[in-house]
């Protein structure tokens, strides 16, 4: 809290997904190189389930994959999943916080909460991606990412398992790039090289 934020020289990617999200993530995360920028993922899953999603992706990805622990410093080469039943937030010093506060759009974790706090911490050094889903979570969050100078990518609704989430994000963020799923990974890695 010393006013030096956003910290310069580090970038991050935030991804929000809901219905159809596991499949969509499978088309992106395994393609990222092991030293890629940190990726923070919020996917809606039923609460009171022990999450196996991090383990599921750990086997497929070159980056390390973990379920986020409170106060973990955000590090390159790592994919952080929001734990089920907690909001995942980004602090100004680029560490992670968790919270049990009320669900947003009936969702905990909430994509908007992750995106809005990440936007404040990373500013223009952030890429926000909204994938398949059947609710409106993520639209306000992606708006915040773009307003802070970051880049917005949205999965093309045509071909998405559930279109409402990408369509809501497009309505809120007309300047975001809308890409077919298979081009999102290329867009990310092309940018990284």
């Amino acid at each position, binding site marked *: *809290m010393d006013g030096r934020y956003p910290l310069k020289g580090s970038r991050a990617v935030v991804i929000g997904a809901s219905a159809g999200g596991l499949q969509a993530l499978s088309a992106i995360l395994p393609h990222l190189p092991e030293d890629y920028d940190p990726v923070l993922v919020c996917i809606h899953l039923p609460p009171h389930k022990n999450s196996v999603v991090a383990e599921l992706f750990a086997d497929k990805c070159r980056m390390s994959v973990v379920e986020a622990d*409170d106060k973990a410093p955000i590090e390159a080469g790592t994919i952080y999943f929001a734990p089920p039943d907690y909001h995942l937030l980004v602090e100004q010093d680029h560490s992670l916080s*968790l919270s049990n*506060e009320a669900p947003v759009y009936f969702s905990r974790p909430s994509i908007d909460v992750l995106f809005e706090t990440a936007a404040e911490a990373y500013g223009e050094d952030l890429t926000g991606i909204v994938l398949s889903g059947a609710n409106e979570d993520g639209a306000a969050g992606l708006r915040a990412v773009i307003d802070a100078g970051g880049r917005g990518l949205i999965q093309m609704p045509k071909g998405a398992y559930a279109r409402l989430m990408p369509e809501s994000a497009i309505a809120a963020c007309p300047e975001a790039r809308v890409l077919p799923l298979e081009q999102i990974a290329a867009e990310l890695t092309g940018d990284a090289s």
Partner: protein
Amino acid sequence: MHNKIEDIEVRLLLEAIHLKYHYDFRGYAMASIKRRLIQARDRFGCRTISMLQDLVLHDESILMELMGYLTVQVSELFRDPAYFKAIRETVVPHLKTYPSLKVWIAGCSTGEEVYSFAILFREEGLEDRTIFYATDINQDSLRKAEAGVYGLDRMRLFTENHRLSGGKSSLSDYYTAAYGAATFDKSLRKRIVFSDHSLVTDAVFAETQLVSCRNVLIYFNKDLQNRAIGLFRDSLSNRGFLGLGAKETLRFSSHVDGFAEFARDERLYQKREEA
């Protein structure tokens, strides 16, 4: 730039609350408390957080309502059943070697966790030798904790959690249901001391053998977490146990060397012996 002004306003508001009412939220994790204060701003019909500061400084009743935003009350009986199962199976055998026990439930909120412990200790034959300290800063929560009344609609979840925790009795033995509410048996409270205590500003008050503090530290920044964990460390007897929330860890704490991992997945730690 708008966001930076809000950061300034949040810090000024927390400073004002501290100066006027001596509640110290200045070391709370910023991202979350800022979100909750923006919700409070809208709830109180204020255009800015500065206006909310004006309200709360001049009207104590606002503070009482604001406490519901500054602190987060979410709990269940036997929340994360694997945690209670691990305590039952691996910590209780150690506790049974003590003639008397003190257990501190820090940040007890509306009491679900302390009733879980009281029931577990009764089932394991430890209740009569134990004093439970249930502490929180939110007076309203403490009153609810002491009343031990929960919505009947929550009992299905609580019953399932209790069963998964290895419960040796029926949860319905411990409450009476009437008018949509479940009232927990007052005999469960005879070993519980409810008390106003702040992990931010107060000191250690007893030597304990087990501290359970779950989903409280997530609302603190690192410095404040270190202070709170320092209190637990000072309070615990040698080889005493500390239990944290499912996604909380000592890994990023300055006290990491003061504890050994006891049950890694359940976030149970054991205090190392001091020289």
